[in-house]
């Protein structure tokens, strides 16, 4: 009787182990490896900086932001002021008064091209012909199914060969450096201001490259 019992137990036991292993394998194979949970952390305070990160919540300020907007009228160290207003008059004034302070060199042009491709080409196109990726028909397929995305209104072409007109008068290929700089700084029509994304030197490099595209 006892022997019988044990034989049965061993069988049961082995069976249980097999089932447990199989279950563990199945469970661990579940999911795509992503998790909503950050998991266990050891001494979380070693992850957090002692000083506040610029984008961190900060209860010391009224608006709970660490990065505060500088008081009106102040100029941060190393910051170059742009002394032209966003008006048609100042646009014309920038067009005549401002000159590109950078020399036209291969290096500046190469950097200008890179900055143009990163910051401008998705609308203006790699050659500035107003045929960037987001102005064309395109589709996405994701968890909400397949659908067409909205086309962004195409900007006019810079190229001389296409002869497009600027909405502020004159041919696009005749825009002066100052006018292009003014437009990068304030934006125009459907284009937003890119002043926060490009510093003055980078803007002038982009202007230099755009003036190359105008010749095409």
């Amino acid at each position, binding site marked *: 009787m006892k022997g019988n019992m044990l034989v049965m137990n061993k069988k049961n036991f082995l069976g249980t182990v097999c089932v447990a292993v199989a279950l563990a394998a199945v469970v661990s194979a579940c999911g795509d490896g*992503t998790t909503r949970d950050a*998991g*266990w*952390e050891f001494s979380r305070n070693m992850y957090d900086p002692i000083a506040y990160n610029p984008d961190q919540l900060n209860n010391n300020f009224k608006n709970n932001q660490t990065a505060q907007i500088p008081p009106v009228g102040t100029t941060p160290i190393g910051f170059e002021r742009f002394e032209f207003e966003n008006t048609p008059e100042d646009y014309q004034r920038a067009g005549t008064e401002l000159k590109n302070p950078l020399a036209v060199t291969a290096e500046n042009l190469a950097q200008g091209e890179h900055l143009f491709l990163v910051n401008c080409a*998705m609308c203006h196109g790699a050659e500035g012909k107003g045929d960037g990726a987001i102005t064309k028909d395109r589709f996405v397929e*994701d968890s909400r199914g397949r659908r067409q995305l909205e086309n962004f209104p*195409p900007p006019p072409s810079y190229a001389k060969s296409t002869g497009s007109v600027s*909405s502020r008068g004159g041919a696009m290929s005749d825009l002066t450096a100052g006018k292009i700089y003014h437009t990068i700084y304030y934006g125009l029509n459907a284009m937003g*201001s890119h002043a926060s994304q490009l510093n003055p030197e980078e803007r002038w490099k982009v202007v230099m490259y755009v003036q190359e595209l105008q010749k095409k």
Partner: protein
Amino acid sequence: MRNISSVLGRLAKSISISLVLLFAVTMTSNAQDVKEGAALFKANCTTCHKIDKKVTGPALAGMSARHSEEWLVSWIKNSKAMIDAGDPAAVAIYEEYNKMAMTAFTHLSDDQIKSIIAYVQDEEVKLAEKAASPAAAGAGQSSGANNFMIFGLIAILILAIGVVVVLNRVTRTLEKVIVNNQAAIQAAQASNESFSESRNAKFAKAFLKNKKLVGFAVLMLVALLAVVGWRTMWNVGVHEGYQPVQPIKFSHQIHAGVNQIDCQYCHGGAYKSKNASIPSANVCMNCHNTVTASDHYEGELSPEIAKLYRAVDFNPDTREYGSNPRPIEWVRIHNLPDFAYFNHSQHVSVAGVECQTCHGPIETMEEVYQYSPLTMKWCVDCHKTTEVNADNAYYDQLIEAHEKLKKGEKMTAAMIGGLECGKCHY
């Protein structure tokens, strides 16, 4: 009499034929106008205007109702001249759009402008038809859905009543059976209880007596705990696969993948600073001041883009910003401990590492997760195999310093950076 009637008949015939011909001619010329207008509209107007929506300029639908054709032609040719001349309608538009003058299209002929107007009118009609038909279709659909739901509910109700009735009858029969066989059931219950009790006790006794089996069970338990513990401990602080819910369902698949917007357009810090930086909402607004995804929300603003508008306090109807912006509280995914220093620009600009090397196929992620473990082993493994690009002025200095050492020249600490503030004050 006969004569007169035949003459009249002929006259009527010829008139009707000429009318038909005239109509056909005007129709074809109209179609041509619309076609030419469409091309001109695309080339000159779409930067600022949409037919059905106010963008930089006003929505064009209904413009022929608001202004005469003559007025429109003169406005499109040179709006500034009309404003300067003090035309009341022109000045009103100028004031409404913050004194932004429309481009003067002096190079367009009157006929060209008229064909643009014809195109806009044609689109207007199409729009009105579309507005009428989907509304009807939608209504039909929704009532269809309602009917379907009502029929479904009725079917479920009937089914439920049927089940209740059947179950009721089954219970009644069973109750009858129990009443008839009470004695037999009690006897069977008693014997069953005693049997199971004795069986469990016997099993436990036999198991505990077998020391080998107990030892084996304990060993297995310890091994299991050890494996689980080991794995858990190695994964403490490792956030690989972490995919938190973000406040806005921003899809990198759409923006970086389909739209081909460069990573650095939004994460502009990646090539020039320690942090890749989360874009401020004004960067989003560069496109989303016009892109509302309303095609997919029956002409309404997408709820996710609405969250962005709320964050920057932008009113899409007046197209003005308010004074009460509220930052978007994105949940940080990649978080290196504060004691480890990592610099994005060193990796992106100097080493030329692709974003995808560490962040994985980000352009296909509808929802971003952490692709790499970001452990020290992971960093070290890559640094062990990455070859340094020696075309860098930094290494020229290094080589120069080594040459000096080889020649036996004197070298002070100051010459190799010993006077840099950061060497002591960090």
